[in-house]
């Protein structure tokens, strides 16, 4: 099977899952008790107004017709009106998503640049003190809930040592650079505003580190295990006997095959990462899409909630598609195997 064919297969699969997700979300939104039109208009609207809105929302149609209407509206960019902000939910999502995306990007950076080397060193120095320390550390990182780690960071670095900002994205004295991506640190960097850049980095550090802890633990565990496995291969012994430096063997020749399972794990833990983002955003008052979702939830803002869940599902599928793509590039066995 060719690479393109493999990618197409994965893409179709993602689209099918996304479609299924939209059905589930739609069903959930329709079993919510209460009349959506009445809720949108509030208690003071007249019966005629409610009836008119019911007509325009299509609530008199059959469920299947309603679903088709919902999907076609989604494709037109109409996610429905948020009951709280009174705007198209898509506008809200565009406003809040960059903050979440920024958090996730830094989280993944930490996972890769901390988790992978930890695993490599652990495997190279198997059963040493360093290995045992890293093993304990990664176990704790996986087991401890991320939001409690976040709270601990806040208490230690924010309140006790007072060296780190506790909440928000930027100090109130500064104003963000003009919006390009909506991600403050990148916007500031592009426009050369280094004061804002470093300030936003400082704000990002604690939440993104807390969010990355479970990932770091998982990745270092898997990297260690697969490094140990690769280490028993003949070609590695040959390299050792030729006197190739350990560092080069470890980080170049062994890491490439050993990195593939880690990549897979990053994809698999991404769901829990997105879930944890809800908690971390709450702990650090991070104005992202997850916090928006929580507020929507508490106020029974159905359209906003559906938008958030759909967006999170789409992000998850997109990430896994990118990971499949990378895996295919790195490992010919993945793209050449018959089964999916």
């Amino acid at each position, binding site marked *: 099977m060719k690479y393109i064919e493999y990618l197409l297969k994965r893409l179709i699969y993602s689209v*099918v*899952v996304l479609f*299924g*997700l939209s059905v*589930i*979300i739609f069903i*959930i939104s329709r*079993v*919510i008790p209460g009349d959506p039109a009445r809720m949108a208009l509030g208690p003071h609207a007249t019966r005629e107004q409610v009836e008119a809105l019911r007509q325009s929302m299509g609530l008199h149609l059959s469920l299947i017709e309603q679903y088709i209407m919902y999907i076609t509206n989604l494709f037109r960019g109409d996610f429905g009106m948020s009951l709280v902000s009174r705007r198209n939910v898509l506008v809200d999502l565009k406003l809040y998503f960059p903050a979440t995306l920024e958090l996730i990007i830094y989280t993944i950076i930490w996972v890769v640049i901390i988790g992978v080397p930890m695993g490599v060193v652990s495997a190279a120095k198997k059963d040493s003190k360093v290995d045992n320390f890293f093993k304990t550390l990664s*176990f*704790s990182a996986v*087991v*401890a*809930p991320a*939001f*409690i780690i976040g*709270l*601990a960071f*806040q*208490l230690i670095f924010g*309140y*006790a040592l007072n060296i780190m900002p506790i909440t928000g994205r930027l100090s109130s004295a500064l104003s963000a650079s003009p919006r390009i991506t909506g991600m403050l640190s990148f916007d500031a960097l592009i426009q050369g505003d280094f004061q804002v850049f470093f300030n936003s980095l400082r704000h990002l550090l604690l939440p993104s580190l807390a969010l990355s802890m479970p990932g770091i633990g998982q990745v270092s565990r898997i990297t260690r295990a697969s490094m140990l496995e690769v280490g028993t291969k003949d070609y590695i012994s040959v390299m050792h006997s030729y006197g190739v430096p350990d560092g080069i063997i470890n980080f170049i020749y062994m890491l490439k095959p050993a990195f593939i399972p880690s990549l897979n794990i990053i994809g698999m833990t991404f*769901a*829990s990462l*997105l*879930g*944890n983002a*809800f*908690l971390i955003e*709450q*702990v650090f008052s991070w104005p992202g899409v997850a916090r928006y*979702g*929580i507020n929507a*939830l*508490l106020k*029974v803002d159905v359209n906003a*909630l559906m938008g*958030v*869940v759909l967006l*999170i*599902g789409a992000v*998850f*599928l997109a990430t896994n598609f990118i990971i499949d793509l990378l895996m295919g590039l790195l490992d010919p066995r993945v793209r050449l195997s018959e089964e999916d």
Partner: protein
Amino acid sequence: MSFLKNERIKENWYRFSQNKTSVIGLIIVLTIIILAIFAPYLTPYPGHRGAQTDFRNTFQSPSRSHIFGTDDVGRDVFTRVIFGFRFSLLLSAIVLIIGVPIGTILGLTAGYFGGRIEMVILRFTDMMLSIPPLVMALSISAVLTPNLRNMMIALGAIWWTWYTRLVRSIVVSIRNENFIKSLKLMGIGHLHIMFKEILPNCISEILVKVTLDIAFIIQLGAGLSFLGLGAQPPTPALGTMISQGTFHLPTDWWMTVFPALAILLLVFGFNWLGDGLKDMLDVEL
């Protein structure tokens, strides 16, 4: 026979106790279970589990009469933490009682029959798995009003997926074994083969997964309560207590720190125990 049985128990215990942390995990878990069961008799102020208030004793820092301090309405935090154990364990128990049988039956069915049935069940499972569990639980608890019972339903409704995958993968690995084939040839009913012959092969894996999942569910439940979507005050759920405590940081830190430590104790205890069982039963998850 009883001699042999004793020997087996001894051997299993030996393998389990090889790792110190497994034994610590077991001790933590047993202690917590006892504390949770006998909470009304072991806590100094059992009345403080609910809405009772004592406004003369608000925000007391930890002392001999209140070892974990008191909260914003004067309730003893230690008492509430012990009752919090109760709610955490209850939550895990109910979620697993809902989720494990559903997941196991679906996994058995998918693995045993194969073909189209397997494909439909697996695709549906994948779809459910593509939604982060917390998000799914959020949406479900949004439909139903947020409280402890609905949180249990929400988590139970998504929890089966992991067991479907686990059980199915084991069934697939043994479904073409000769003993299954000969049973089929003998004309033994499908249900008998599935539940009496195949299921016992999955028990060790399920047991280990259940132990580790208890920790995971406690963590998720605490997260949901922290977000205000699980148990509502004055229920002494650990997550709820933490979220109320954060309003009083950093001066009244004990309101946040002790419930947080209690959650850590729970999740570490069950994970250590689960890892020990994993070594003992020689299970790979």
